[in-house]
């Protein structure tokens, strides 16, 4: 007898004199039944096709059809205001009709890899990841990622991809100085400028170099500006020690909130983040300067979970990100997408986007560290940072 009225159901309970014990037992049985029945249903719902390892082995139509069958994509640790991920996710959802669940938007690369490990076999596991290079290398070696060569793999620069196909570099940026021009009269142009007494209690990093990739890059950039090199970040650590001694350095993590409130008037952070703050907070009059004495860049890496719950949607995501449309959305977020040189050669970049970025000449000196240099720098920072800035 269908219960159309919830009150009717309760009346039935009272009339039938369903005892509490009976109700509890029926509830328990329903719970157990639903739990048991839901799992195989879910397993049968997934297609039994094997996802391809090369983008060329499947037509776009087939890929989109398989992805639509999966219906959704799980992403992780993608802040909406980081390199325009907000618009990237919404555009993808609208274009292919897939819904995206973005877990833990402020998560770290370590948490992304950990999510792959601990959620193995769980339908909530992340399908795609965006991690820093050392975690990408660790994840690839540990077998967390699936091999996938997307259609544009050959065009991606050699130093921005994994030869075995476990990850591809997605976008890069350089360390810049973001400045609140309401509070700071003379905008600093280099790391050397930051030591001036007029910047007391004003300079902040995006976290500590022991936990934040951006802060570690800040140390690299400071090292390049102070006579160090990619192999020796000691001068960079000493620079921050000097900055702390001068009273200019505040150990507050620079976030959109501290930028907007004026608590961190000078921020050493990725250029795409500082440029995005400039657009997001016009009242802060946020200027972004590429330091003249040390230009350090780094890229992040796209990877696909080896046990992705939605493998076709994951591959569709990567294919779409490396189309011109996807790459330009990253450029709109002020980062340099992996295929930047190729897009520039084919004159596909709108002039308005190019103008929004700092002049290309400033980026010409950029230096990227490889895995070995990054590992060495991490160890150095791990040993010396607390002492220098303590």
């Amino acid at each position: 007898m269908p219960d159309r009225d919830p009150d009717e159901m309760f009346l039935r309970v009272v009339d039938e004199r369903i005892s509490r014990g009976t109700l509890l037992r029926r509830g328990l049985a329903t719970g157990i039944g639903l739990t048991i029945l839901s799992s195989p249903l879910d397993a049968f719902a997934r297609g039994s096709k094997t996802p391809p390892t090369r983008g060329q082995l499947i037509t776009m139509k087939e890929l989109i059809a398989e992805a639509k069958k999966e219906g959704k994509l799980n992403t992780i640790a993608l802040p909406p205001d980081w390199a325009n991920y907000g618009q990237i996710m919404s555009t993808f959802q609208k274009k292919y009709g897939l819904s995206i669940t973005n877990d833990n938007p402020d998560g770290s690369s370590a948490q992304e890899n950990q999510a792959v490990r601990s959620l193995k076999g769980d339908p909530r596991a992340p399908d795609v990841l965006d991690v820093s290079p050392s975690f990408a290398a660790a994840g690839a070696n540990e077998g967390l990622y699936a091999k996938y060569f997307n259609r544009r793999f050959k065009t991606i620069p050699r130093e921005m991809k994994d030869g075995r196909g476990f990850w591809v570099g997605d976008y890069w940026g350089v360390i810049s100085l973001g400045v609140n021009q309401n509070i700071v009269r003379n905008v600093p142009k280099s790391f050397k400028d930051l030591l001036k007494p007029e910047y007391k209690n004003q300079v902040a990093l995006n976290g500590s170099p022991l936990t934040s990739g951006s802060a570690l890059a800040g140390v690299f950039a400071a090292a390049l500006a102070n006579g160090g090199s990619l192999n020796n970040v000691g001068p960079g650590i000493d620079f921050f020690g000097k900055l702390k001694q001068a009273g200019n350095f505040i150990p507050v993590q620079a976030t959109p909130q501290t930028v907007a409130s004026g608590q961190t008037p000078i921020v050493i952070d990725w250029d795409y983040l500082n440029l995005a703050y400039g657009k997001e907070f016009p009242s802060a009059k946020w200027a972004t300067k590429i330091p003249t004495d040390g230009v350090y860049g780094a890229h992040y890496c796209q990877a696909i979970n080896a046990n992705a719950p939605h493998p076709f949607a994951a591959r569709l995501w990567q294919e779409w990100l490396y189309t011109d449309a996807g790459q330009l959305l990253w450029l709109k977020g002020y980062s340099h997408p992996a295929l930047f040189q190729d897009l520039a050669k084919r004159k596909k970049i709108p002039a308005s986007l190019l103008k929004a970025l700092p002049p290309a000449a400033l980026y010409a000196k950029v230096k990227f560290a490889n895995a070995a240099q990054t590992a060495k720098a991490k160890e150095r920072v791990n040993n010396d940072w607390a002492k220098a800035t303590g």
Partner: protein
Amino acid sequence: MPYAWLGVVPFFLYAFAFLLLPAGQVLVGAFKDKDGAWSTANISTLFEQQYVDAFRNSIEISLVTAVLGGILGLCIAFAALADGTPRWIRPALTTFSGVAANFGGIPLAFAFIATLGTIGVVTAFLRDQLGYNIYFHGFTLFSKTGIEIVYLYFQIPLMFLVIAPAIDGMKREWREASSNLGASSWQYWRHVGLPVLMPSLLGATILLFGNAFAAYATAYGLTGGGVALAPLKIGEVVSGNVLDNPHLGQALALGMFAVLAAAMLLYVPLQRRSARWMR
């Protein structure tokens, strides 16, 4: 009722799953290296300068806030529960302490940054109205002192909550009896009051110590790792974007267990001695 013990099974299951099992995992994992083989390398890493400094800072901050919070909480409790105080003060203080003792983490850090930070409300007031810029005179919220000030915000209310029942247990008759026998206030406290309270005082201090020792989010939100503390070190090697060494994190956690175990070892004989009069 032969099956009455079944009632505690859920509790033991819960304690096993969420207390004993993770503690066991930490104990075992601390002695493994990245490849899963047995090794004591992580334990020897614990004795490197930066981790020794981190533990020393943690212990120092916890001791200072436990003792200071204990004394201040005790004084507030006495004042609130004294005979002449208006009746409404006690429930008001209890409610406030219940909230404040649990108000920690990032919201607390940001509340203090908004008050005493470089552009905080109080800092700005002192600078603009009284012409005294505390930051130019060497004060900074983002240091060990700053962390201690922030921790006291939840340590004092916690002390109040814990010690108020003990103070309630002190009968007014004892005070009257002792003054009838000619004892001064100081003698009363020295021979009657404090010895009676001492077991509770010690227990509360240990509680405050452990509370401050394990605090993570507050210190992280305030200094972002600028001041080396043991829980922050664990966070760095387990869930950051730079370092990745979970087994070292487990070794650090084992180190924290050791410190707390040492504190308990100090506490037990002290507690026994202080409760001597009750036997």
